[in-house]
């Protein structure tokens, strides 16, 4: 009864990994030491904040929605933490508050989208404006975080004696990887996670099958808000400062990473590991161009745009093929 086929659902993620390996190969071919662990760890470290944000963005996109507020929530989180520390609050409390606020903010967006059936694009657009504006209200200029005991503690690196020079992991690297693993398990192995896929694929069918659509939608935006806040914390640790101007346009990078990671923007299809590779591909392109020196940095944008285009066409093609095989 089964028609002969290729496991079409693996093609996008396969393509993503292929692109990643290709980019890496180009790097190794052209630059000394590109294949070293240090380069990879730097790549991970520099993009950890985007990675965390992309997790949240992907969860929302899987459910068929979109979140434009990511960059602004990161900026707000940074400002909030910097300001609170400046006012003498213990950094741990500041971080905790930021996470709670981020999740609540996401939940509010989710309620508006789910209960009142407002378009996600516009609601999160409003969220983006709101969070960005609030960043300026907290403080109009960037604030540095200096000599904070908690932040200094976080600076401690984890040394793992593997390989010739040992593996050095920083706090934010570990945080990202841990969150990634949790996200992978969540989306693949929990009921709530599978509901996200169901809702993204066909809301009507999902309702008929007993899936709590409304609750799922609110959940995904809450998760996105949470991830944006954590990304903000990561970013603040990375830069040791808060800046209301930071991460302008980051939501588009997160979306691009998601698309390049093999996720369908209409929802229902995609693997969380794809977001990991998507983010790394983005980072790799930047690194390659930087290393090359004589290629100008703006090519990053053009190449990313072209990659997004390629993946979109691929997804379109796959959808058409699977529709044909169904008919």
């Amino acid at each position, binding site marked *: 009864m089964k028609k002969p086929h290729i496991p079409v659902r693996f093609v996008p993620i396969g393509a993503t990994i292929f692109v990643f390996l290709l980019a890496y190969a180009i790097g190794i071919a052209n630059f000394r030491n590109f294949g070293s662990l240090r380069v990879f760890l730097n790549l991970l470290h520099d993009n950890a904040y985007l990675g965390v944000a992309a997790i949240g963005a992907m969860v929302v996109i899987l459910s068929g929605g*979109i979140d434009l507020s990511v960059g602004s929530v990161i900026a707000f989180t940074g400002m909030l933490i910097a300001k609170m520390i400046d006012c003498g609050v213990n950094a741990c409390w500041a971080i905790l508050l930021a996470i709670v606020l981020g999740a609540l903010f996401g939940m509010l967006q989710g309620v*508006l989208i789910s*209960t*009142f*059936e*407002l*378009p996600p*694009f*516009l*609601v999160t*657009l*409003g*969220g*983006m*404006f*709101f969070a*960005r*504006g*609030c960043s*300026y*209200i907290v403080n*109009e200029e960037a604030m540095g975080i200096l000599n904070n005991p908690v932040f200094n503690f976080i600076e401690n690196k984890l040394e793992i004696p593997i390989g010739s020079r040992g593996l050095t992991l920083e706090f934010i690297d570990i945080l990202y990887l841990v969150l990634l693993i949790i996200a992978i398990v969540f989306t693949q192995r929990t009921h709530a996670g599978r509901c996200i896929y169901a809702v993204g694929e066909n809301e009507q069918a999902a309702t008929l099958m007993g899936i709590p659509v409304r609750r799922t939608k609110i959940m995904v935006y809450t998760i996105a808000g949470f991830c944006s806040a954590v990304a903000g914390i990561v970013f603040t640790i990375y830069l040791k400062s808060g800046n*209301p101007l930071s991460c*302008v*346009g980051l939501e*588009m990078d997160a*979306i*691009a990473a998601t*698309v390049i990671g093999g996720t369908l*923007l*209409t929802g229902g299809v995609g693997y969380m590991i794809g977001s990991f590779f998507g983010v790394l591909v983005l980072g790799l392109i930047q690194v390659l161009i930087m290393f090359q020196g004589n290629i*100008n*940095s*703006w*090519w*990053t*944008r*053009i*190449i*990313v*745009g*072209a990659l*997004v*285009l390629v993946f*979109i*066409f691929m997804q*379109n093609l796959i959808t058409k093929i699977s529709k044909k095989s169904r008919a």
Partner: protein
Amino acid sequence: MGRFHHLKWPLVALGLLLLYNLIFKPSFFVVEMTADGYLYGSLIDILNHSSKVVILATGMTLVIATGGVDISVGSVMAIAGAAAASVIVMPRDVFAFAGGGANAMAFALAVLLALALATCCGVWNGFLTAGCGIQPMVATLVLMVAGRGIAQLITDGTIITFDDPYLNFIGNGHFLTLPFTTWIAATLFITVVLLTRKTALGLFVESVGNNEKASRYAGIEARGVKWLVYAVSGFCAGVAGLMVSSNIKCADANHAGLYLELDAILATVIGGTSMAGGRFYLSGSLVGAVLIQTVATMMYANDVNPAIVAVPKAVIVIVVCLLQSETFRSKLSLAFSRKAKGGVA
């Protein structure tokens, strides 16, 4: 008032804002004439700064009316500005073929190239959406991401500054006491209004946006209509890009038009055009753009950091969405009817 019912709430909001200023900051309304013979003041600022959003919103309204969206306009503005700047700073002997009119020729070519490139970007977007059937948000995302890179390619990574009398005039000049930008915006707006209302284009756009399948059955070339509106949106972005780079006398690929697509979408939604497509209201988008700029200018006038204008924008978006949402309206009327019933007892 029937045909302009959609303007009711935006105009009321605008009126309230102006009323606030009248009471608390009457200097807002002061308009003076400079020695050079042009007007200035907060009201003139609103006219001037809202021009770019008016222009963008004009194209955006048509795109949204067909059920799509164009988030690439900011990046296209950067491309247009970069193209114009690159041409205008070329040494004049390149234009020697024009004889004594070399300067004018340089200007003309700069503008032409900018608008041509911008329109091509629009055609490209149309190709992806109408031609290939890709979802508009995704399709225009490509150019949004790549566009600034292309702009930097044109400027070779630098910020090109220029000081050409013709090009400077676009963004900084005045005509008949009013800023030239206002004239450009008005001309473009009126042209598009005529184009859509005096030809069948407006009807086709509304039809396609409201029920594309039935429009096809009626013999409308839906694909062509959609393609065209994206081209128009691109052209509008080109005009706005010229204005913006002229205003600051340089082409800044990174910052030109940043986030302006969102303002354009906001203006369109405030004006009554639904993101689902169908009926569109250019006059509404105009009022929406002016409303947004009024809020921003008020903040300037009151020494509030203009970046915080983002907060009232957020509130406006949510309020407009709620008002347009049937679910919200029905829940609200349900809540009110319960109260009424409770009150009677």
